[in-house]
């Protein structure tokens, strides 16, 4: 990231104010966390606003504020196909998953996604495979986000990489361990509000920057005719593949779906899609607006071409917004990362402390101490991986999200609504998702295969696990248990 110079005192001030609020939330939540149900399922007392905003905050990681605008800058409107499915999948997740998940929480006392899968398929194997898939993806994705948080703190606070990384991990771990998911969802409320306000505010300065160069549309159109076309500079298949992966893959993200297990009652779900859609759209304004602005400013000659597309947001903030707004957006970026990491830690700790021992027939002591120790363990392992090698983190990051999607979408989205679906199909589809993702992404990363644009390990694994789930259900007897 670029240097901040004279802007640093203001950035540090805003960041410290934000962290003070998070600390207060952690202290408040820790006093209300006395059981593992509080720790993993927030005592099942989430209302509409807490559910909607915390789901949005958990969904959007630092990618939405840093990587996303960089992609729009580089790929044009093609990158927007990542955002376009948001309004369909928001309602789809409520329609297909929220009600069955809430029902399993109420009738079976399930507090984890693998726990729901065990109750649905009456199979410890399905629970165990889901727990392993979730634990693998959680460690991979937490390492990526820990490194991203370290990079933000390194830039804002002027620290070296290693102390910045451990400071970020320590702050997130402190409130996650103290208050569990209860601290997480209320911190998510603060973080989601910061993200939404920052995203709306930035649009004002994007508009002002556009006025100064005579409009971005004309400047970009003159420089690159394809940029504003429906697929931007991408191939149609690659753009549509983004819609496929980000649209349907959302139905397999346990750190978001887990929140449906925490709702107070079904009436909470009534307005959830509308509020959630509005929150997502508002918070994603920055994703599109800053990417368009930087491309327009470069096309008009007001900015030098970016050497790294990920610098789009920092450079726009430095050169085109007041210090307070820049501070708020950086705090929002840290907030987006922290809220995602907290949710990962919660589902990862639950998978390892409850689901895996249960699946193996050796339930561990169901205590807060056990849950907290697993949370610390995952966070420390992820931070060690993040500190050890950026290359390793880059490799892990590409399959974290995809692993969730490929492993869990069929068993959850189809299985919870298709009474004939079998345990054998669920286990087979999850294994297919994990193995295809790992095999294809590894082969691609180590340059053993060159895939055409749009054909990613995640997309191939997702389509393969869907076909396996449907095919095995049709070919296995209805009473088959894995």
């Amino acid at each position: 990231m670029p240097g901040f110079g004279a802007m640093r005192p203001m950035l540090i001030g805003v960041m410290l104010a934000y962290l003070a609020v998070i600390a207060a939330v952690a202290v408040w939540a820790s006093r209300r966390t006395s059981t593992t149900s509080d720790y993993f399922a927030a005592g099942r007392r989430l209302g509409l606003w807490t559910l909607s905003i915390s789901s949005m905050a958990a969904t959007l990681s630092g990618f939405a504020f840093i990587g996303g605008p960089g992609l729009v800058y580089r790929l044009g409107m093609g990158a927007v196909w990542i955002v376009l499915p948001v309004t369909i999948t928001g309602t789809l997740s409520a329609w297909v998953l929220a009600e069955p998940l809430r029902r399993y929480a109420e009738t079976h006392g399930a507090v984890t996604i693998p726990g729901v899968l065990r109750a649905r398929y009456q199979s410890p194997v399905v629970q165990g495979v889901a727990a392993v898939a979730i634990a693998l993806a959680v460690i991979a994705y937490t390492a990526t986000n820990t490194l991203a948080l370290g990079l933000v703190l390194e830039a804002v606070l002027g620290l070296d990489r290693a102390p910045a990384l451990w400071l970020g991990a320590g702050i997130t771990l402190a409130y996650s361990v103290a208050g569990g998911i209860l601290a997480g969802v209320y911190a998510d409320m603060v973080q989601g509000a910061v993200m939404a306000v920052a995203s709306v505010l930035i649009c004002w300065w994007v508009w002002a920057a556009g006025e100064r160069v005579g409009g971005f549309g004309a400047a970009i159109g003159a420089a690159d005719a394809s940029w504003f076309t429906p697929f931007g500079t991408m191939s149609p298949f690659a753009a549509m593949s983004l819609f496929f992966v980000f649209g349907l893959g959302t139905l397999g993200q346990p750190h978001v779906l887990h929140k449906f297990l925490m709702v107070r009652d079904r009436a909470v779900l009534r307005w959830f899609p509308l509020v959630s859609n509005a929150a997502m759209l508002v918070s994603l304004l920055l994703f599109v607006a800053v990417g368009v602005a930087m491309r327009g400013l470069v096309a008009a000659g007001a900015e030098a071409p970016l050497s790294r597309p990920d610098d789009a947001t920092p450079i726009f903030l430095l050169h085109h917004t007041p210090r307070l707004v820049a501070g708020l957006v950086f705090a929002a970026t840290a907030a987006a990362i922290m809220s995602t990491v907290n949710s990962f830690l919660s589902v990862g700790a639950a998978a390892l402390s409850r689901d895996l021992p249960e699946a193996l027939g050796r339930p561990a002591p169901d205590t807060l101490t056990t849950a907290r120790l697993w949370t610390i363990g995952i966070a420390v392992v992820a931070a060690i991986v993040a500190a050890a090698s950026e290359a390793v983190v880059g490799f892990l990051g590409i399959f974290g999200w995809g692993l969730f999607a490929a492993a869990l979408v069929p068993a959850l989205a189809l299985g919870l609504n298709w009474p004939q679906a079998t345990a054998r199909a669920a286990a087979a589809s999850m294994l297919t998702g994990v193995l295809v993702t790992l095999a294809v992404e590894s082969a691609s990363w180590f340059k053993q295969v060159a895939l055409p644009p749009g054909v990613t390990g995640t997309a191939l694994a997702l389509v393969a696990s869907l076909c396996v789930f449907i095919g095995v259900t049709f070919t296995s007897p209805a009473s088959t248990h894995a």
Partner: protein
Amino acid sequence: MTGAERRQRLGLAMTAAGAALAAVAFVAALLGAATLAPWGLAGGIALLTGGMFALRAGAGRLEGRVAIGITMLCLAAFALALTASRDASGRVPLATWWIAALLLGVPGVVLPLAWRRLMDRS
């Protein structure tokens, strides 16, 4: 067979056809069929998304209508995008905004309202 069972079968058929079509599209892309692959994936996504709306246990007429509606909406948006992308005119193409409106605006408001009706009814 009851009406609800028929509609759920429709959802299952749409989902299975969507998964199969998407799989064919990815194989076509791997084989370098650049024209066929995006159309196949467009159809696959539309059928998969619509199918999942219809698949909900005890699916009623509302689920059936939403499933068909969302399939047609996705197909229209994808077809518009695939057709418009062939003509890079140098201006901001109107099709870009129509696609965004179809995929963001309509489902963003209509689907949550349909969901609320479903919650009230059940």
